[in-house]
């Protein structure tokens, strides 16, 4: 009996040993860092060993995503130790979160505890209240390299936004990565690949269609200065549903027109103004002589009587609050304020349409051939006057959207559908800085500077906003601290803002100590301290990405130097210098008139896209400007 028992026990023991994982016998686990191909280590901070996103969509109102990733962090620059899963409380649920840490040899160090995953509100400071939340965990193992494994499940109900698959970020290489989407028969899955040649394997069987993408052995991509935004470089697969539910509403995304119909339906009937408001609208526009004037009056009314307060709960993230809500509270978010403006215009017979856009983002994922709601903002368009209004701004002039809304592909929807439109692009001649300065120099090197500067377009925004939000004292303090001028005392400082046009004028009169540096009998006078541009993009060994230059501005400055008694010019640059390139032009003219030197400078920067080989040309252009802007005029005491 005992012998038998022992034999069984022994057997069991052996079996147990055999079954407790190959780790006891293998040299290294499968996630050992030594298993990574050296090509994948180049320029990489992170290596994705394995990633799988499985999305199961059984109906238009439900989807379940199972996600698993295994990432190796090669050094402290890797951000893979911070994991963030965003979700919307009213639509999503996150569950079955698990995490593990492996060391460099692939051995399991530990499993993450549930308490390490924190659930936090993601409401930002501009939103009063919303359902955005996130689950996050900060993992660490101080022994680099190490590997982190993460798994979770995300259930979505009644939504219209499919995730996109970001195959790799900068400095991240990929060993193996999969995206699998299976949708129910009635739903046509829309997909598009960006920056990668990758088609899915499609399997259709009865009720379900399965789409599978696979990626193996992708080298890391370096980011470079002055390059296009990430959506033009990084490989991605975009997904979009054809049929979807948002709350109790149904819609389709088979075309922009169909999506427009849905958005219209969602926001219908919320533009009724109260009788009191109607009366107010007629009252204030009674004396207007044109539609344009009516728009300007109502826009001003909107700005002076409402403010931005974001409340985005559930469907409220997409569906606007009614005009009644805004007139009662005199606040609302971008959708509500835009809808309110639209309702007021409707009352005086002016037709306008909401336009969905992506504010502030450098990317532009919106395109004709792929319908997906990559929007975060709403503005208003009045086609009859070609007017555009930013309804959340307290200080923009009418028909001015601001630099964070300009030149974007956006979506305008109407009662009959919708289409893509382009928001106005502010060109260099509209974004100006024009300095008109007089600098009176003293033999001590001190100077008196009076300057009047006209700013237009994108260049006037920050002056306009400062004028609106800051007191005179704070404006002067800001001026004192921001200028690249040596210590000075303010005699006068003023910012004036044009009510109707995107223009602001800054006027100041100051006394500067040591504007010019003295050296024995010489004075070294900087020619351009008020508007010098010194930025030169860094040099690189071999550039990969094309250049994308976004600056679009035109500066025209005139400075009159009144030279001190008893001094003459010993050294000054050539009277005319012109540099003209694809990237813009730079022109300096110097004229001596008696004891005055008139310095005229023009700088225009033009946006454009160029192949990588042109980078040195661009650097040379910026270097030349930087060098010439820092030239000093040398004055010497006249010989008596």
């Amino acid at each position, binding site marked *: 009996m005992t012998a038998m028992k022992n034999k069984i026990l022994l057997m069991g023991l052996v079996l147990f040993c055999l079954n407790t994982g190959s780790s006891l016998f293998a040299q290294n686990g499968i996630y050992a860092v030594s298993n990574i191909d050296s090509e994948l280590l180049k320029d990489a901070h992170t290596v994705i060993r394995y990633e799988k996103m499985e999305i199961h969509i059984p109906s238009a109102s439900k989807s379940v995503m199972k996600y698993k990733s295994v990432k190796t962090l090669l050094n402290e620059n890797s951000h893979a130790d911070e994991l963030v899963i965003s979700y919307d409380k009213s639509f999503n649920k996150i569950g079955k979160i698990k995490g593990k840490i492996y060391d460099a040899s692939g051995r399991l160090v530990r499993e993450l505890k549930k308490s390490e995953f924190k659930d*936090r509100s993601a409401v930002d400071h501009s939103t009063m209240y919303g359902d955005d939340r996130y689950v996050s965990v900060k993992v*660490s193992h101080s022994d680099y390299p190490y590997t982190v494994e993460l798994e979770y499940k995300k259930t979505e109900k009644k939504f219209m936004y499919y995730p996109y698959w970001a195959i790799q970020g900068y400095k991240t290489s990929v060993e193996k990565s999969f995206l699998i989407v299976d949708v129910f028969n009635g739903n046509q899955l829309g997909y598009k690949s960006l920056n990668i040649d990758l088609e899915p394997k499609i399997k259709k069987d009865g009720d379900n269609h399965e789409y599978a993408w696979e990626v193996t052995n992708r080298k890391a991509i370096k980011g470079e200065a002055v390059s296009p935004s990430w959506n033009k470089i990084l490989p991605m697969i975009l997904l979009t549903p054809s049929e979807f539910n948002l709350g109790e509403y149904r819609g389709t995304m088979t075309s922009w027109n169909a999506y427009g119909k849905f958005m219209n339906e969602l926001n219908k009937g919320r533009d009724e103004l109260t009788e009191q408001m109607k009366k107010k609208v007629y009252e204030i526009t009674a004396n207007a002589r044109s539609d344009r004037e009516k728009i300007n009056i109502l826009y001003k009314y909107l700005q002076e009587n409402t403010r931005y307060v974001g409340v985005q709960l559930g469907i409220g993230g997409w569906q606007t609050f009614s005009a009644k809500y805004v007139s009662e509270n005199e606040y609302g978010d971008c959708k509500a304020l835009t809808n309110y403006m639209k309702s007021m215009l409707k009352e005086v017979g002016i037709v306008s349409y909401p336009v969905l856009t992506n504010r502030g983002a450098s990317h532009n994922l919106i395109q004709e051939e792929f319908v997906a709601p990559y929007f975060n903002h709403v503005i208003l368009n009045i086609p009859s006057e070609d007017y555009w209004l930013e309804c959340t701004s307290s200080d923009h002039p009418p028909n001015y959207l601001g630099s964070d809304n300009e030149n974007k592909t956006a979506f305008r929807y109407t009662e009959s559908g919708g289409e893509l439109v382009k928001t106005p692009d502010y060109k260099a001649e509209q974004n100006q800085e024009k300095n008109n300065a007089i600098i009176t120099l003293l033999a001590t090197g001190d100077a008196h500077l009076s300057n009047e500067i006209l700013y237009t377009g994108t260049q006037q925004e920050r002056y306009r906003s400062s004028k609106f939000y800051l007191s005179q004292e704070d404006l002067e303090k800001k001026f004192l*601290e921001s200028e690249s001028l040596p210590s000075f005392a303010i005699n006068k400082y003023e910012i004036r803002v044009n009510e109707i046009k995107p223009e602001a004028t800054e006027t100041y009169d100051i006394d500067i100590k040591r504007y010019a540096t003295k050296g024995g009998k*010489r004075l070294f006078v900087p020619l351009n301290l008020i508007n010098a541009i010194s930025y*030169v993009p860094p040099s690189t060994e071999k550039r990969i990405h094309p250049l994308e230059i976004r600056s679009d501005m035109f500066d025209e400055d005139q400075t009159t130097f009144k030279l001190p008694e008893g001094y003459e010019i010993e050294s000054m640059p050539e009277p005319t210098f012109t540099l003209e390139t694809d990237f813009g032009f730079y022109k300096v003219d110097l004229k001596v008139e008696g004891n005055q030197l008139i310095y005229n400078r023009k700088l225009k920067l033009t946006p454009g896209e160029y192949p990588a080989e042109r980078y040195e040309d661009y650097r040379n252009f*910026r270097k030349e400007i930087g*060098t010439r802007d820092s030239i000093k005029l040398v004055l010497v005491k006249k010989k008596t």
Partner: protein
Amino acid sequence: MTIFRIFTSLLFLLLSFSVSAQKGPMKWGRVLKADLEMTEYNLEPDAEAVVLGEYATIDFSFDSDVVNYEFFFHKRIKILKESAVDRGNISIGYSGKGGFERIRGLKAQVIFPDGSREELGKKDFFEEKVTDNWRRKKFAFPNLKPGCVIEYKYKKISEGINTLEDWYFQEGIPVRFSQIQVDIPSVYQYVYLIESGSQKIEHTEDNNIQGGGGATSFKANRVTFKAENIPAMKEESYITTMRDYQASVRFQLKEILYSSGSSQKFLSTWKELAKELEENKSLGRNYLKSSTHSNVVNAAKSHIDKSASHLDKIKQAQKFITSQMKWDGSYGIWCKESLNKLFAKKIADGAEINLMLLAILRSQGLNAYPALTSTRDHGKTIHLYPIYEQFNHIMVYLEVDGKPIILDALDAFHPVGYPHSNSLNHFAWVLNKKDPKWIEVKTKNSTKSFLATFDLNVEGDLKGTINAGSNGYYAITEREEFHDSKYGDWKNVLEGTFPEVQIDSIEVINKEEIDKSLKVNIDCTIAKAAQVNGDFIYLNPVVSPAYGENRFKLEKRNYPVDQIHPWKENYILNLTIPEGYDLEELPEPVLLALPADGGRFSHQIKKIDDTHIQLVSKVTIKQTYFSPEEYLGLKKFIDLIIEKQEEQIVLKKKS
């Protein structure tokens, strides 16, 4: 008649009772006509809004199992400019159920200039669950325009009787009236930490008060703090934290005197606090009881040379712990788990890592102690009372050869004796029940040296070498930069001054040996470094100035300048000028000093022979704290340094 008399006397009783229960100087909804009509605040005409009144009371209650207090708060703000309407978005933070706080009776209303009003309803109040232990009640006042007055009030029930509520009299807009009134049961003794912020704060006490009511009434002491006409507080830079200068009062429970005659002390003496902290499981026990840290100590053994000097052992121990542990970026003084468990996790907060280092040093026979401090952004230390809540970080203190050393092992770049910048807050308290004491947290000088040897040619190009060295905080920053890039920050620094610089080679010495100076040798060519015009060549000889620009632009400051550590920058240039040129102009030498040797600047340029010159420019700043009165002197000092270091050398072609 008798009935009438009783009635009136009853009335009097009622009146006097309601007087003592009065909720303060502001009546809900009753705004002074002058305030409704106000278009600007007479004391600060530029202000965008003004707090007309802010009033709170704290009343204790013994009605439930746990002692709690009710904090009643009422605030009224006048909106004067359109830019202030966002002040109508209110957020009230509290700990929620997890932290034993709850909010009740929240009311809010807008009163328009014409006297009409609009009250917010339940649907206007939102509750945000930020984390498990922090919530926010949020709401937005509707219909706000300049001229409106907004007010809100609420009650918060809390169990945090140790510190009650921190009360700030000052904020970003002027405050006309601010008062907090606390009815403290006589059995509780509190100390008050008052930061006057150069304002007049009135403090009155009345110990004839009856607190509570009904079954549990008690004798109480009414303490009132009041301030009026407080100016707006504006942020200034180069400061520890504005809160150190903000007019405020904080409360700290000192003792509870029971009717039986016994007492429970919350604040006793520094010695007693030291004893308590040493016995605490989450602090003292963790480094005093070997079972809690045995793994850490054992793992360190093989990395420490038993025969090494004390200082070397300390360096080895710090190197070991920083290679094993990653700082999670947070501060605290209580260990979340045993040091052994945290060591296994490889990540911990600042104090936990330093306590591991402490345990290792003690196991090596060194007399090391925890040095508790408050980081710069957390606020200044309080020496008057043994309040442990003031501390949020722990470093390590020991004496080697009679010299004090402070260790702060948060990353691998900071050598021994150089705590993290945020930990440098002037003082720390050594936790040693036999001899607790306050020590000054000082660091040695950080020095940066720059020796440039250049040849200048007739085109104005410089070609040569830069031999740079740095130690202390300069070296820490540079090592972090070299971690990210082959050139560290040198490319950016040189290209920033000379767009046409070309780095031919770069050599970095002692990149990992953090106890040694970091040395960088660069061969470079700087095209167009000098301005050439006709017969003249003009060169700015200071290729790497001490200051890019003077960040102190204002003529006056209200608050001190608190520079974190003392520093020195030495710049030497050996320049060979091209053949055929004369030295036409050289900058005059100068020697400047700040009062009490707080700083020094010397600038000397010497002609070695016809083609060689040497420039030596040195800046030393020893003083780290400058009062507002000393500010102008400091600003002028820096202005003069910048001006001098910008002076050019002029060369003229020989005729």
